[in-house]
């Protein structure tokens, strides 16, 4: 179980509470069913870790829509979590504060040690872990999942935003990341995607137990994609699309985009090309991003170094 000798390592407190969230977007079906199954079958306490499964947006899940009033996964900034709620407040704003009470409060000692939020995308991103600032726990779990799922490319995406501005659910936990799995259409449950995500969650639980039991996890390096900017669709004066993602870019998330490479094909047959720095596209043709004016995101590859860690002994 612990292949490494005791070595120089950074010691960190045990991680004894773990929350798995699904249905933050009500039509992202993997998380909805994973949480339902965990509520039915997973022991509330697995060894040293107590596990909570939470259906984050039950109203949106019932309607099988991303959200009812506003995107729940944009409601977790410090400012929104402390804003007053009235009868006319969007449902998701008050739900975010409820979740913050249950799993947080964000930034406090009482917050859950690790929060993992399950999402799907219509983009061909495979299995990705998405996180904010560089966090050694998250990087170790990422490295561990990669090592346990060698036939599955697992990518890491970093959004360089300070925690107070961090708007998504996983920022409520002391440590947190989102698992993003695709491609899967909204409202559809694919067995291959479900099995892949379930395995990643099981490995996360196994890592937590090994960590708490005293294993040292050797540090190292991981390559992550750091968000730089996003690109919108070409639109006409009325704001309607005049082009679709080019067939050469469609489904090619994480493949390097060089200047001159095709990115859009207009309805009249012209090719629009990428200009500027060589970057890596991701969230290519994500359904929910049309209304956010995003056709795809662009990222640079960054290498993060992290130390060996082990649990602090009292």
């Amino acid at each position, binding site marked *: 179980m612990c292949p490494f000798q005791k070595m120089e390592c950074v010691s960190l407190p045990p991680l004894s509470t773990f929350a798995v969230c699904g249905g933050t977007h009500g039509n992202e079906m993997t998380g909805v*069913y994973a949480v*339902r*199954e965990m509520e039915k*079958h997973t022991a509330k306490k697995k060894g040293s870790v107590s596990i909570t499964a939470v259906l984050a947006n039950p109203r949106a899940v019932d309607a*099988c*829509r991303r959200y009812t009033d506003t995107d729940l996964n944009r409601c977790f900034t410090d400012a929104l979590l402390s804003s007053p709620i009235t009868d006319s407040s969007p449902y998701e704003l008050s739900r975010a504060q409820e979740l913050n009470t249950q799993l947080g409060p964000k930034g406090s000692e009482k917050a859950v040690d690790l929060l993992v939020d399950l999402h799907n995308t*219509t983009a061909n991103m495979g299995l990705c872990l998405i996180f904010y600032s560089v966090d050694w726990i998250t990087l170790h779990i990422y490295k561990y999942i990669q090592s346990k799922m060698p036939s599955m490319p697992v990518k890491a995406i970093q959004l360089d935003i300070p925690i107070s501005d961090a708007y998504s659910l996983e920022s409520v936990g002391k440590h947190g990341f989102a698992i993003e799995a695709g*491609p*899967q*259409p*909204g*409202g*559809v*449950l*694919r*067995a*291959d995607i*479900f*099995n892949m995500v*379930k395995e990643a969650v099981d490995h996360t639980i196994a890592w937590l137990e090994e960590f708490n039991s005293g294993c040292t996890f050797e540090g190292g390096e991981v390559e992550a994609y750091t968000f730089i900017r996003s690109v919108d669709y070409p639109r006409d004066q009325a704001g*309607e*699309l005049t082009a*679709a*993602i*080019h*067939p050469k870019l*469609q489904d090619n998330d994480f493949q390097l985009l060089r200047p001159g490479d095709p990115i859009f*094909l207009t*309805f009249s047959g012209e090719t629009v090309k990428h200009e500027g720095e060589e970057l890596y596209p991701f969230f290519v*043709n994500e*359904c*929910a991003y*049309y*209304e956010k004016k995003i056709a795809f995101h662009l990222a640079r590859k960054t290498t993060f170094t992290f130390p060996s860690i082990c649990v602090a002994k009292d």
Partner: protein
Amino acid sequence: MSSYHNSARLSQARKVAIFGGTHGNEMSGVALVNLWTKNGAEIQRRGVETKPFVANPKAVEKCCRYVDTDLNRAFTPENLSAPGGDDLPYEVQRAQEINRMFGPKGSPEAYDVIFDLHNTTSNMGCTLILESSKDHFNLQMMNYIKKAMAPASCLVLLNEHPLLKYSTSRSVAKHPVGLEVGPQPQGVLRSNIFEAMRVILKHALDFIELFNEGMEFPPCTVEAFRVSERIDYPRDTNGNIIAMVHPNLQDCDWEPLNPGDPMFQTFDGKTIHYQGSGTVYPTFINEAAYYEKQQAFVTTRRETLVASAIRKA
């Protein structure tokens, strides 16, 4: 060229409509109709007036399948004659309006042809949906389209099942033609899917033009898949799904499913096998919109349909 002895004489197809957005989140049709409303040059043909039309504008606005009820199930005789005006569900009102504009269904004034553009999350490729095995005009059109698209595939789905057939928006026309292209997620516009649908319509309109100009189409056979049975997900007593489409069946639309083949997989990995009596050809496998209609997929049987020769009267 000699005439065929049993050539059916059919009237010229003068009024043709192309419906997009019957389901507001099926984006190929929405985008094509918007494009052709702005500039309809591509869909003009001699001798025929072709009208692009957004069937469910409120659903398109909200990018959802429907607002109150599924428009593509709403064209029942009861709905079309229902009194109540503004109190009726939005899509029932809309069905009545569409029936006035493009029908009335069953009358001589009805549009000759309506093409209804749909997308599916299922891996169905290009599919033409036929509502009657005796519609020789449609059979000839579908034969023409298939040959024009070859070697690219374009399959014909026949839904004439007395219980499983439904009252579609296109059914107000004399010759209703469904176009179903997938896989494409709801709310997403894929370039390859958009262009494929565009090509199907190009061939369909070419056929209509040739027919209207007097071309005789000899007798032909059309291979079709006839809808046989609807198969739902295994569910618990509360109606919740307890298994997923099996990875071996997922994306395998139109491939043979034999008794004993894997069909569903439970959340803890157990396989549920197909228990039918013979080989079937499943389609609409894992269509997002059909979870609420209790359908994981439909089974079909292969059949060869025969079309008589046709010629403009």
